[in-house]
């Protein structure tokens, strides 16, 4: 698309008039329609839930210090890990990566003044803390106990909190779906003139691959949850086999969502890494198009592999093979990404900032989780280690070593854009090393525990597994201290951190071209884009940004173009 026709297409839509900034605390910071404020609201809320579910995680590890447990009762233990898993997935990682960093960053990166539907965005956000409080309040009435997957019929026996859980997750799903719609429309319709798809920063590609998953997959989960809720509360049989229901139906519906959800939790993190690496290696990202398209390939293929979670569930055996082979095949685009990131480091001028350490740590840990994913995809091996600590180790390498490391990389990278201040680098490095070492100490031994025969979801275990469990528990405390250092860092830096200026990292994407924190309207004039942002030897590929860092007033008039 030529720049002229792009301007024609977008005239008025994005470069049009600017609404006056709302005055008053409530309209600015509580019921805000500003994507940046909403993004920060998501991030703060999600980190509060992160602290709570992190405490639940340490409760789990404390219980498992001894083979006989004894820290909490088995009933409480089951509640603790169920809420830990559900909260980490739905209240922490997904909101941080989509509603949080998505909202905050990608509209800036495509040169838009806001997302397409700001009021819808506000609604999306406000559903989320309500749902989160509902989930945690289930502890008051007996929280769910059947893990984050809540397989019926055992979840039909669970206490009243299980229905509350279903309602809460349903609401989070509504919030996710609305966010997905908002992001797709924004990314398709509101890119600055000249920003073709193949000039979009890779973080935007990550969001562009994720948003359709949010839109489409979440609806399957919503149906499954509504059925579970109706069965539990009104006795409408969907899953109870004694009344003609099918327990395996839930598993299909649940995993039809939850496998794509794995990509919802990792594709935006891929995007973050793809921004951090070139900035701190001072090099173009290696293989831009392959990284962008492999994200789309992963998102598409992610819809076709859900039954690999169900190899032991009594599926027709011949159905196992296509799911196995398709899952192996996802290893190819994932491998391409890992190799491209590694190659991006080659020949760079690497600044090992905290953000960069987390990005490199991401590649190291995510690769490990990816490889054990191949193990689990192989049906004969899955029939051995399914439902054991091997699986626990695998998905923590992907979701903590991957997604959460990505979140931390994003926090160190974009905190200046949110606050105008830098996070402390020394504390950041302490955070990284404590977290990295603690993480591996916690989850690496779990592979072996699973192979040797330790099942998941257990409040007590065979004494032969005590040594490695204690090792894991102690390491998890190290990891916890690392996270405390991070919280201290954030709270300290937000008041006393070094002022960052607009572009502390010499970044080249559009968000670094405007003040930190940006104005309400983001851009005084919508820039025009001439190329990819990653050519460090070239001048910046933008025009129309001359006034952004001056005192000049924004171009306010409607229809100025």
């Amino acid at each position, binding site marked *: 698309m030529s720049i002229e026709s792009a301007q024609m297409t977008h005239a008025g839509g994005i470069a049009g008039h600017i609404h006056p900034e709302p005055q008053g605390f409530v309209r600015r910071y509580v019921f805000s329609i500003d994507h940046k404020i909403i993004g920060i609201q998501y991030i703060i809320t999600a980190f509060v839930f992160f602290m709570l579910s992190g405490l639940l995680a340490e409760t789990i590890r404390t219980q498992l210090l001894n083979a006989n447990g004894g820290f909490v009762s088995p*009933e409480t233990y089951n509640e603790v890990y169920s809420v830990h898993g559900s909260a980490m997935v739905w209240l922490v990682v997904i909101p941080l990566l989509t509603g949080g960093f998505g909202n905050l960053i990608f509209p800036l990166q495509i040169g838009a003044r806001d997302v397409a539907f700001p009021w819808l965005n506000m609604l999306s956000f406000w559903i989320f803390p309500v749902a989160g409080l509902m989930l945690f309040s289930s502890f008051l009435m007996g929280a769910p106990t059947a893990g984050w997957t809540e*397989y019926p019929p055992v979840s039909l026996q669970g206490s009243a909190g299980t229905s509350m859980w279903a309602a809460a997750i349903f609401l989070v799903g509504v919030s996710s779906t609305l966010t997905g719609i908002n992001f797709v429309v924004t990314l398709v319709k509101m890119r600055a003139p000249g920003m073709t798809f193949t000039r979009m920063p890779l973080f935007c590609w990550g969001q562009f691959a994720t948003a359709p998953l949010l839109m489409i997959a979440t609806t399957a989960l919503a149906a499954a949850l509504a059925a579970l809720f109706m069965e539990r509360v009104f006795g409408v049989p969907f899953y109870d086999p004694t009344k003609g229901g099918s327990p395996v139906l839930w598993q299909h519906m649940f995993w039809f969502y939850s496998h794509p959800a794995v990509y919802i939790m990792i594709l935006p993190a891929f995007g973050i890494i793809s921004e951090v690496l070139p900035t701190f290696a001072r090099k173009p990202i290696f293989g831009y198009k392959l990284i962008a398209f492999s994200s789309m390939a992963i998102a598409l293929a992610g819809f076709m592999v859900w039954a690999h979670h169900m190899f032991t569930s009594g599926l027709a055996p011949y159905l196992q093979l296509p799911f*196995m082979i398709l899952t192996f095949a996802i290893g190819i685009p994932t491998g391409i990404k890992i190799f491209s990131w*590694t190659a991006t480091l080659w020949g760079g001028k690497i600044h090992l900032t905290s953000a960069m350490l987390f990005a490199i740590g991401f590649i190291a840990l995510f690769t490990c989780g990816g490889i054990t994913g191949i193990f689990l995809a192989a049906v004969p091996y899955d029939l051995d280690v399914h439902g054991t600590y091997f699986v626990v180790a695998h998905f923590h390498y992907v979701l903590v070593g991957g997604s959460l490391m990505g979140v931390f990389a994003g926090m160190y990278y974009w905190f200046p854009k949110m606050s105008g201040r830098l996070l402390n680098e020394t504390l950041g490095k302490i955070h990284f090393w404590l977290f990295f070492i603690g993480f591996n100490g916690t989850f690496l031994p779990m592979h072996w525990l699973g192979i040797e025969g330790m*099942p998941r979801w257990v409040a007590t275990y065979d004494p032969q597994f005590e040594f490695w469990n204690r090792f894991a528990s102690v390491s998890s405390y190290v990891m916890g201290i690392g996270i405390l250092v991070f919280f201290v860092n954030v709270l300290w830096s937000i008041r006393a951190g070094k002022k960052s200026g607009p572009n502390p990292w010499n970044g080249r994407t559009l968000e670094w071209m405007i003040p930190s924190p940006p104005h309400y309207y983001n851009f005084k004039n919508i820039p025009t884009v001439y190329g990819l942002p990653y050519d460090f030897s070239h001048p910046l590929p933008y025009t129309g940004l001359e006034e952004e860092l001056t005192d000049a007033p924004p171009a306010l008039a409607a229809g100025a173009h």
Partner: protein
Amino acid sequence: MVENRAQSAHVGPGFWSVTAVLGLLAIASIVFWYWFPLEQYLPAAIVTARQVDTLFRFMAATGSALYIFVFGYLLYFAIAFRVKPSDPPDAIGVQVHDNHRLEFWWTLIPALFVVLLSVVSVKIWYEIMLEPQNGLVVQAIGHQFNFTFRYPQINGEITDEMHLPIGVPVTLNLTSSDVIHSFWVPAMRLKNDTVPGLVTSIRFTPRLTGRYQIICTQFCGVLHAQMNKQVLVVEDKASFDRWYQGWQVKNAHVSNALPAAGGAAVALTGGSAPAGQTLFAQKCSACHAIGPFNQRIVGPGLKGVLHDPSHPDLVNGDPATPANVAKILQTGYVGSLGAMPNATTNGLSNQDIANLVAYLDSLK
């Protein structure tokens, strides 16, 4: 000279030495995984367990080798290409965007590996699936929170250990009386869920005598963690036969009823036909007539249900015996004739069921 420098700048200082070291480490890791004495930690109790171990060794060896290269280069690049204090503040890296030859190979090689891994996995999958069908048929039933086992010609259920003779192919049919459990014996490298309302089966041939832990690996309720107390005993034919005959004698007096929901089979002795008649009027007569089979209200007429030679089987295909009638009363029925709720929904105690069966038995 100039060319040499260009060459070393092309791949970076020490690149080939690092590659050589990583190659050696990768070979060492492959050797390690093929040498690793897995069976010392975890015996391979059935024939296909060793095939699963072969698959594990293959994936662990290739996965480690790949990981050593990724992690090694990552570490090496991050250290070797750090910005130096002597570099100007705006120093930039080598401006490479891509390298099509490199990308071609690192797409093709993983793709070929995926093909290879698929072939290996499918082959081993077939070996597991194609275990003989005509062996000993055993049923394992999951309950909250133990498994019970049924053997041909042994009445009732065996509640403690599961015994199998060495070298005899086994078909293990799995089902559950309540929620989903999963039957796993780590020494077998094999598991399958026990799903209520569904019978799934796994087939295998024990190859090594010993006692192996049976573990439930699907969360099944508050005491899930305790559902690991039972063992699979693989023993020689003579010991197995002794154990088997012992149970035949021990369970001779037990009715051969299938397990009812909730676990225990209903004891049918002591049922009272008059009490059953009263109960039938209250709880059953809305749907069932006391008339011939084809006199249907909702369900079939039940006169002579246990004594009608023209209907030797019950609606679910089981032979018309008191125990099987009790089973339908207990677990309900879903099928071509419609649906009947189970005992819990109908509010029937075990004594009620015994009374009803006694009443139906009295109708000739």
